[in-house]
């Protein structure tokens, strides 16, 4: 492992040698330890991430050298210039030479580290001329992806953590990618410049993939962007990196970098699947169909807050079992699901879910647990309410 890291330096200059040296030093640990002992940044897989990695290593060495220099002088002074050894304190006042030196040296050090740092930052911000653009939307607590340009334009899906609840509750052993796995990862082609547009619907989230050196806030009401060009196929994992509420730790980012051929196959599959699942909006659903579909939608979108048994986590997340809204008029219930409730964590699901999904989930909430209202809700009713 460490040998590979050192060999990969060919023709990449001084900074990379430094990186190799650090990696070599860490290899001492690698022999005895596992992933829990990884001390450095993740191995970079984009040119930009390599720059960030090298910059970090360089700065760590600069800091280390200054630290050793300063504390060497301090320690030496303490030991050899103490009163008990008969040292007399100097009594001069003002020394222009020293003052000039201690102004100029830090200035030079600052300029020397600001130059590479700023140029890396400028490169990081240059998201122009991407090969494809993807919009990532942060929700409490999942990511939504939509391919805006490129072959996959129009493909969109939700990316929800797939680690089973039992692992989180310590009832079953943790999997290899515990808390870092999702049902639908973001899939991108290798070697292509991918621009990621970022926004959020509820609170501030942060889309972060350490191997790409990408970490950008997703702020509701704003559109920000970042980019990466992955050089190696593989699966790269990150996490939401801006505290966004109770399940902040449970909304990972997973990016699969695949070959151009695999990407083309994936795009074709996605388009076919999207065409297949489009529901007939005029279909009239029966109760058992609605309940089955509604339970699925509920588990994926509602259960994190309102809980699988509908009891909620009051007062932040009210109960749906026996609540005024679920037992009240249909229109009011549909309205809150479609448009959300401002000032609370209740999101507007109108933009996230289809008419059929909303009809099914509302019907489910009105008929599950003790809410046996026996009411059917059809997609057409949801459609009629949307405009209002």
């Amino acid at each position: 492992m460490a040998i590979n890291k050192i060999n990969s330096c060919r023709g990449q200059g001084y900074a990379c040698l430094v990186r190799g040296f650090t990696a070599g030093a860490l290899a001492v640990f690698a022999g005895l330890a596992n992933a829990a002992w990884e001390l450095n940044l993740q191995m970079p897989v984009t040119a930009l991430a390599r720059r960030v990695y090298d910059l970090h290593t360089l700065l760590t060495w600069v800091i280390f050298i200054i630290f050793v220099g300063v504390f060497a002088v301090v320690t030496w002074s303490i030991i050899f210039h103490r009163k008990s050894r008969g040292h007399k304190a100097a009594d001069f006042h003002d020394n222009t030479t020293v003052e000039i030196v201690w102004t100029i040296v830090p200035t030079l050090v600052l300029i020397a580290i600001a130059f590479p740092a700023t140029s890396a930052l400028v490169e990081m911000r240059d998201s122009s001329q991407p090969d494809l653009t993807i919009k990532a939307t942060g929700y409490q607590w999942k990511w939504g992806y939509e391919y805006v340009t490129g072959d996959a334009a129009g493909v969109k899906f939700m990316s929800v953590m797939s680690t089973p609840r039992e692992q989180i509750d310590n009832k079953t052993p943790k999997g290899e990618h515990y808390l870092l796995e999702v049902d639908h990862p973001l899939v991108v082609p290798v070697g292509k410049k991918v621009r990621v547009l970022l926004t959020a619907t509820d609170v501030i989230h942060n889309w972060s993939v350490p191997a790409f050196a990408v970490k950008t806030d997703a702020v509701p009401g704003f559109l920000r962007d970042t980019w990466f060009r992955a050089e190696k196929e593989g699966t790269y994992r990150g996490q939401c990196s801006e505290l966004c509420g109770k399940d902040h730790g449970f909304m990972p980012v997973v990016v699969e970098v695949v070959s151009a051929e695999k990407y083309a196959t994936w795009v074709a599959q996605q388009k076919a699947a999207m065409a297949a699942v489009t529901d007939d909006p005029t279909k009239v659903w029966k109760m058992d169909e609605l309940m089955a579909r509604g339970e699925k939608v509920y588990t994926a979108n509602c259960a994190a807050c309102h809980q699988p048994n509908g009891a909620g986590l009051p007062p932040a997340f009210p109960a749906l079992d026996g609540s005024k809204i679920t037992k009240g008029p249909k229109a009011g219930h549909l309205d809150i699901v479609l448009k959300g409730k401002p000032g609370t964590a209740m999101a507007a699901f109108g933009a996230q879910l289809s008419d059929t999904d909303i009809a099914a989930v509302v019907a489910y909430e009105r008929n599950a647990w003790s809410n046996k209202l026996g009411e059917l809700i059809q997609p057409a009713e949801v459609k009629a309410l949307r405009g209002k």
Partner: protein
Amino acid sequence: MQANQHAAHAGHHAADSHGHGPTGIMRWITTTNHKDIGTMYLWFSFVMFLVGGAMSLVIRAELMSPGLQYVAPEFYNQMLTLHALIMVFGAIMPAFVGFANWMIPLMIGAPDMAFARMNNWSFWLLPPAAILLTASLFVPGGAAGTGWTLYPPLSVQMGMGMDMAIFAVHILGMSSI
């Protein structure tokens, strides 16, 4: 008017002739002695250090191994937030002020701090703020669970614990002026 002045003068005179200051709790509430105030700051800071430290023990105990062990995620966030606010505004800053109160008049040879009564007030703003912060744990919805930055719009999703935290931070800020 004249009567008032006379009364005030009489009161003043009476206090002067009293010889020693109030005793018991009033000795501490009314003190203008920089060493007394410094001591109160240091004790307050120490108590807050223990409270904030206990919260960090909760955080560390939960993080000792992966998975949920002792607390729910939302309570973990509340511990995180209160730990940060209490340690910064309740422990570290008052500790510095406590040392400064004790040491600076001695170091510069002044008889006391300037504005000695304001100095006393600065301290006595702290306990209500600390009570607000810690009591916010017990209100419906719990304390603020946003991290110490209290970023909106997440802060808007919190219950009244958030309002108490905001008020507490304002009082703490006023105290440090």
